[in-house]
């Protein structure tokens, strides 16, 4: 089977900045006419509250296994030429890139759908958690679906 027909998939967790330009280069290919890169970045405002930083924690082995599972799932649903999923852990400042998804397909519709699938599902099943560092000095784990009080740090 030629390289063209093999979906080249790679996932990574990192404590440092994500080199999204390199990820994008890695999925480019003459077999693909379309590349979609998604970056999640640390946003200042969430429901009107001001964030100064986020701390990301992961369950590394399972997180990587689930990220690779998602890449394989995408490659089953769409003609993926290459896919990369990288998540950063640790302390991130405003504007920092927390997650990058890069995917290439022959045509753009598939590349957009595969990219959207990868980030949507990552947020649902990959065991990584973020803690908000609010501007008022409090911190708070973000756990969708659970209700809890703010812990003042």
């Amino acid at each position, binding site marked *: 089977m030629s390289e063209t027909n093999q979906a080249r998939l790679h996932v990574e967790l990192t404590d440092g900045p994500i080199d999204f330009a390199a990820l994008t280069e890695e999925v480019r290919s003459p077999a693909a006419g379309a590349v979609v890169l998604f970056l*999640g970045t640390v946003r200042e405002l969430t429901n009107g509250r001001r964030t100064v930083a986020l701390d*990301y*924690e*992961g*369950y590394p*082995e*399972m*997180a990587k*296994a689930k990220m690779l599972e998602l890449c394989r799932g995408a490659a089953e649903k769409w003609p993926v030429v290459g896919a990369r999923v990288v*998540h950063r852990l640790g302390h991130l400042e405003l504007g920092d890139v*927390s*997650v990058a998804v890069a995917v290439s397909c022959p045509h753009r519709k598939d590349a957009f759908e595969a990219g959207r699938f990868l*980030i949507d599902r*990552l*947020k*649902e*099943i*990959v*065991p*990584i*958690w*973020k*803690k908000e560092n609010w501007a008022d000095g409090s911190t708070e*784990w*973000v*756990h*969708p*679906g*659970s209700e*809890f009080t703010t*812990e003042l740090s």
Partner: protein
Amino acid sequence: MTVTVQLFARARDLAGTSSLELDLSEAATVGELREVLISQEPRLTPIARTLLVAVDGEYAANDAPVREGAEVACFPPVSGG
């Protein structure tokens, strides 16, 4: 048997530790593990309802078995990305 449970995120913060040893019956299920976890570490009660359990890297339902030597982790709903 004794099973080590890894805790993450708010679960670790509430329990004050990143892992706990639990004494379980030989034919224990994930459901029993949850009960033992909360009774041994009642500070996890606020998130007991939403706590997820992973066994050997896979999400596990309450009726799934927990075998000796399994890698078990308990954590709240994920919020990466």
